[in-house]
């Protein structure tokens, strides 16, 4: 008792600077692990590093190379969109960020292991699966997903052997989102405009032999529900040597509704109506055709055609009627949305929706209680579902990062004990310097061909160059 009092008295005699030292040694570094080096991961990291000056952020990426859909999703003829890579690179080169490429959650490390090693784990590994039509014959050879087609021309490792059959005249894309339009543009663009992009060499070669002349872009609902954005449509309208053919029936009654629309929807609809008015009576000889088709729901798949139900709109939903239409379809591209996969059994995953159950980025404990699982977070498409442009993902990731900071401040998240962070075992880890070697190699390889880069597609080759 007496010695205790003495100790307290002695402690009181310590100078403020020594007390500060004691305080510092008892406040361990806050360790946060981000799984997935795409836009959501980098934007969250940027925010965490800014708001928490005593944190270390480790980013784990399944592939050796970073940037997720900015590298593997954004269309090659949209290089400006990829300028965000400069911001991400600044974040990656922050002294308190460590990049671990070639580490796969659920394969090389378990979620439980990460949770033991970090105060917080933020899952941002995106959406790598696609929604299916759930039709018979969907597995037949002429049906592929737009996601895998995008992965193919963008050089995602594992997608290089897709060999889409471009020997037929008609392609039908089911879905009308921006991915669907990207795919249509890649199929219809003059090859010369793609040659100066970072489209993979094997895709350019296959596209050079393409016999595709008509691309149908089919949606269940009407023009007022079209999912593509106006920039993407304007590009299609401006595409050289491509005739855009709308169906005037699809637009009956649309002009009358213009006035009550919000500006974005109004401008998009006006552009469609203008394009419809501008289209000639007959198609232009020698031009390829882009054919947006509304109010058709997928019904059946046959070897070289696809059957659709004619739909009617009821409160903005498409309801199938008994009428049907068949479209010639040598190749069918399914583009009705992405979904995420569950890579570790410790993740509270909603298989039906294809995302992680969460409340504002805080992962929920289970399906029903609504209770938060402290220390586990989700951002980007894995949490929100696959919608929105990069701005959407950015705002969302910033908000989740803010929630992590708030939880640390309110002690909802316990950061009192030290955590070791990730330690690599035998597997080859790609550091940021390793990525920079890959980047330099790709850029150099592209130079000779007048391309911004020639992507390396083979993982072994990536590892070899990174390790050099």
């Amino acid at each position, binding site marked *: 008792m007496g010695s205790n009092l003495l100790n307290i008295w002695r402690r009181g005699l310590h100078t403020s600077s020594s007390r500060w030292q004691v305080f510092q040694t008892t406040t361990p570094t806050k360790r946060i692990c981000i799984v997935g080096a795409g836009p959501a991961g980098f934007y969250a990291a940027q925010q965490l590093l800014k708001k928490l000056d005593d944190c270390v952020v480790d980013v784990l990426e399944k592939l050796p190379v970073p940037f997720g859909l900015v590298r593997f999703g954004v269309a090659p003829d949209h290089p400006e969109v990829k300028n965000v890579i400069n911001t991400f690179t600044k974040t990656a080169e922050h002294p308190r960020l460590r990049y671990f490429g070639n580490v796969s959650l659920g394969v090389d490390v378990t979620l439980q292991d990460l949770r033991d090693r970090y105060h917080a784990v933020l899952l941002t590994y995106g959406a790598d699966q696609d929604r299916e039509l759930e039709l018979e014959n969907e597995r037949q050879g002429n049906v592929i997903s737009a996601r895998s087609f995008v992965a193919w021309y963008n050089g995602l490792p594992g997608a290089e052997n897709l060999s889409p059959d471009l020997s037929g005249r008609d392609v039908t894309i089911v879905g009308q989102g921006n991915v669907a339009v990207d795919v249509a543009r890649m199929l219809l663009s003059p090859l010369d405009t793609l040659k100066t992009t970072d489209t993979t060499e094997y895709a350019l070669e296959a596209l050079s032999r393409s016999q595709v002349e008509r691309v149908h872009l089919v949606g269940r609902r009407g023009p007022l529900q079209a999912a593509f954005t106006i920039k993407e449509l304007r590009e299609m309208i401006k595409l050289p040597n491509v005739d855009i053919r709308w169906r005037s029936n699809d637009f009956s009654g649309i002009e009358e509704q213009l006035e009550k629309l919000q500006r*974005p929807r109004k401008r998009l609809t006006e552009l469609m109506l203008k394009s419809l008015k501008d289209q000639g009576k007959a198609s232009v000889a020698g031009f390829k055709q882009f054919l947006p088709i509304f109010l058709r729901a997928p019904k059946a798949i046959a070897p070289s055609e696809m059957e659709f139900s004619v739909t009617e709109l009821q409160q903005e939903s498409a309801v199938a009627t008994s009428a049907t239409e068949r479209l010639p379809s040598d190749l069918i591209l399914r583009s009705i949305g992405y979904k995420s996969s569950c890579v570790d059994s410790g993740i509270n995953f909603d298989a039906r929706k294809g995302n992680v159950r969460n409340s504002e980025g805080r992962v929920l404990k289970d399906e029903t209680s609504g209770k938060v699982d402290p220390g586990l977070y989700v951002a980007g498409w894995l949490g929100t579902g696959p919608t929105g442009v990069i701005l959407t993902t950015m705002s969302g990731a910033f908000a989740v990062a803010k929630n992590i900071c708030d939880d640390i401040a309110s002690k909802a998240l316990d950061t009192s004990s030290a955590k070791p962070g990730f330690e690599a075992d035998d597997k080859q880890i790609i550091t940021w310097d390793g990525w920079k070697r890959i980047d330099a190699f790709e850029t150099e390889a592209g130079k000779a061909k007048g391309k911004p880069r020639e992507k390396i597609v083979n993982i072994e080759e990536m590892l070899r160059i990174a390790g050099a």
Partner: protein
Amino acid sequence: MLVINTCKIASRLAIRSLQLRSLNASRTFSTGLALKQKDVVNVTFVRANGDKIKASGKVGDSLLDVVVNNSVDLDGFGACEGTLTCSTCHLIFKTNDYEKLPDKPGDEELDMLDLAYELTDTSRLGCQITLSKDMDGLEVHVPSTINDARAA
């Protein structure tokens, strides 16, 4: 002239912004020497929570240049670096100022603005606005992204 962060910043942030300020001061100063005073245009960015950030550029700079050159603390601003492929440099003008802008927004700019949060009739993309001397003293509002709104 200087980046002045107002209110509600923790002391360490204040120290950091002081360092930033001196950095910017020297940068602005060095170009300022070569420039005549009449080429300097002062701009104030007003955050959703009312914070005002003063910065300056020179005639011919875009508002995005002003944000970048002064390291104005606006998260995610200018993601596509002024290439009209995103809407992260969305700014809202006062009606008077908006009407005085010499160039009306083109289709491509409007296309991007259509994807912005809190779109108004006086919204523009900062990368498309070129400073002229008569803009000196301009005040523009920065829309609250989800992030800013919650931080406010």
